[in-house]
């Protein structure tokens, strides 16, 4: 504790120094290794998450290539299991979460009129431990015995008694990811609580800031529980404890309770910031203020609260008593109410707006429609009686990819397109952006929609082979998958092109854009709001 705050004062001294030479920064690799600038760290987070997206995506390509036709063709079943496991871990902890942290780093200080994050050195550290975490995780794939193969949910006893020896690497990787997320979350909360510009009351904060504020609290509450869970798995595997081992008096079902106590709020950690993003972009391109701002804030808070009391809906088939099943079913369905409030508010914002369809808006509209589809399949899964049929089938896979890919990932694309002019000072190539959107939009639905049918027909998830009647749909799904994977290269090309050159962006790059970040020049100067702006 003391060390953190001590170094902070030290950094503070440097800041005063910086203010005299507005754009002074180190050169070369040192700039990135030693940076405490929130914009640099945001950029690092975003690039890291994009690299992870491509890495996890490559693993998805292996999975879809194997499932292209029935039978075993390309990989061994054990390696297939490693691919599904590491794909899940990388996409959740390596792609989606760091991308949101990156956006938070870039935008929150600029949106609340602060010169930087409150704890700049901690910020540097929380980013730079991430590559090591994923280095450990990925390295285990190349070791004797292979990487983790027990699913990203690492259910005991798969990860303990039946582990292939990769558990220790997995556990330490997750520990480091957890520490990184916790430090990032502390930084976000402290910044928002203490560094808002004079006049910016809580209820005047942009909704983007609100959703990150609430998400950071969720992270603080559940990441330590995840750290505890993996620690228990570690000691069960290597130190002879019996938290989850029935032989020693433990209980494997307990694992699922503790894991999902983390796991369900984690789901909202990955979607609440997405709500914040589209609540920023939709008003901008409708040229209307957001409909029902305060109801959005309360809805976000209600979802965060409810996320703590619904975890066992992941466990309906573990033999819960009827009363428990009913409790978790109704609580889960209750979440549809605040989520519905949000969807209606976005639609109401668009109602009679002067809408234009630039790429960020296209991704935002796709988000609203496709996320709602994912929400509805979630409601179906919440119903206990039918969950017994859907449990662990491709219907579940379809559901969480609709909320995570067309939900979270699409919102991140919307955010990147929306703020690219502010970050780079150039307008991106709108034609290329629209091409990226339509390729993604079509292929993602070819990829994930047939999975609903596969699941309803009974195809189990995490299996490298399948019965012949599933062959046609799987072929479509694989083709959609390859197309979606390739479409992301358009995005990479577009971003590189935009960084290098393009039409000079104005300070306020979009006609309907609102907020403090549009009052500074494009590209945003290295240091912004050294003197806080006044907010009425």
């Amino acid at each position, binding site marked *: 504790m003391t060390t953190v705050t001590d170094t*902070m004062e030290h950094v503070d001294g440097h800041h005063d120094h910086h203010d005299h030479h507005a754009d002074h920064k180190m050169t070369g690799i040192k700039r990135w290794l030693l940076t405490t600038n929130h914009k640099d760290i945001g950029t690092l987070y975003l690039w890291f998450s994009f690299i992870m997206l491509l890495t996890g995506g490559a693993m998805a390509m292996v999975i879809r290539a194997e499932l292209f036709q029935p039978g075993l063709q390309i990989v061994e079943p054990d390696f297939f299991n490693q691919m599904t496991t590491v794909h899940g871990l990388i996409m959740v902890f390596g792609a989606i979460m760091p991308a949101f942290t990156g956006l938070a780093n870039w935008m929150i200080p600029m949106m609340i009129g602060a010169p930087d994050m409150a704890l700049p050195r901690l910020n540097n550290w929380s980013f730079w431990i991430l590559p090591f975490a994923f280095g450990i995780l990925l390295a285990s794939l190349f070791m004797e015995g292979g990487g983790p193969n027990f699913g990203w949910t690492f259910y005991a006893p798969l990860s303990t008694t039946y582990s292939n020896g990769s558990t220790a690497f997995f556990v330490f990787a997750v520990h480091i990811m957890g520490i990184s997320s916790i430090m990032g979350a502390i930084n976000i*909360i402290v910044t928002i609580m*203490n560094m808002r510009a004079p006049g910016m009351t809580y209820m005047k904060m942009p909704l983007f800031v609100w959703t990150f504020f609430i998400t950071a609290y969720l992270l603080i509450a559940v990441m330590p529980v995840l750290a505890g869970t993996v620690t228990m798995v570690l000691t069960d595997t290597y130190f*002879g404890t019996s938290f989850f081992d029935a*032989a020693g008096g433990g209980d494997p079902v307990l694992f699922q309770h503790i894991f999902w106590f983390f796991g369900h709020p984690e789901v909202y950690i990955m979607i609440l910031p997405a709500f914040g993003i589209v609540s920023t972009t939709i008003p901008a391109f409708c040229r209307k203020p957001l409909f029902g701002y305060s109801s959005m804030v309360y809805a976000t808070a209600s979802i965060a609260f409810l996320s703590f009391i619904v975890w066992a809906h992941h466990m309906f088939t573990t033999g*819960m008593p009827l009363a428990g099943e009913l409790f978790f079913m109704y609580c889960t369905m209750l979440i549809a109410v605040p989520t519905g409030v949000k969807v209606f508010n976005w639609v109401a914002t668009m109602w009679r707006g002067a809408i234009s369809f630039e790429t960020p808006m296209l991704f935002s509209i796709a988000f609203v429609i496709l996320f709602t589809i994912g929400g509805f399949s979630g409601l179906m899964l919440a119903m206990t009686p039918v969950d017994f049929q859907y449990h662990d089938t491709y219907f579940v896979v379809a559901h969480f990819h609709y909320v995570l890919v067309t939900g979270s990932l699409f919102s991140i694309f919307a955010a990147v397109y929306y703020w690219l002019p502010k970050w780079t000072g150039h307008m991106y190539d709108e034609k290329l952006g629209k091409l990226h959107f339509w390729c993604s939009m079509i292929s993602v639905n070819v990829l994930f929609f047939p999975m609903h049918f596969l699941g309803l027909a009974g195809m189990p998830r995490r299996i490298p082979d399948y019965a012949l009647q599933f062959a046609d749909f799987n072929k479509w799904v694989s083709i959609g998958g390859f197309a979606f994977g390739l479409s992301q290269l358009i995005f990479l090309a577009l971003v590189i092109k935009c960084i290098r050159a393009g039409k000079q962006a104005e300070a306020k790059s979009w006609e309907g854009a609102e907020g403090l970040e549009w009052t500074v020049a494009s590209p945003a100067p290295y240091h912004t709001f050294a003197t806080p702006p006044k907010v009425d």
Partner: protein
Amino acid sequence: MSEQQQPQIKKSVAKLCMTVVAMFAFGFALVPLYDVFCEVTGLNGKTATEATTYQADGIDESRTITVQFISRTAKNAAWQFEPEMNSIQVHPGEMKFVKFYAKNNTGANAVAQAVPSVSPGQAANYFQKIECFCFNQQPLQANEDIWMPLQFYVDPDLPEDMTELTLSYTLYDITATIGS
């Protein structure tokens, strides 16, 4: 960052760090909490881990309950393990005695532990064991066999809709765990 903000930032960071530590501890606290919760509510099919004494007042001969026995060995246990009968008819309150056969086929001295589970789970609190081999570890020499006792009765308060109970035992070879 202005000077006035510093103490506030320190305070917020301290509070949040405390929350993190508290939530880490809470994760571990869930372990005993879960056991207590299961014990109180009788969820999860867990039966008592210690012997009880016979407390029922009389035998309810109007009802007959079928108790089925399932025995299985965990994946790593090279033991033979089976009940002397697959099921038994009991009246609530009536005491019954059943033997289970176990043989150590591992070729070495070994210790096993049987872990019981009752299905449906809500019946676990009504399944009373006066004596059970599951209360103790079973050390057997190589190729030694043993008949192990189970003495139980079903509590007459068992809900009316339950007519069939299943008692399942899983036998684990815990030699390695004890040795370490």
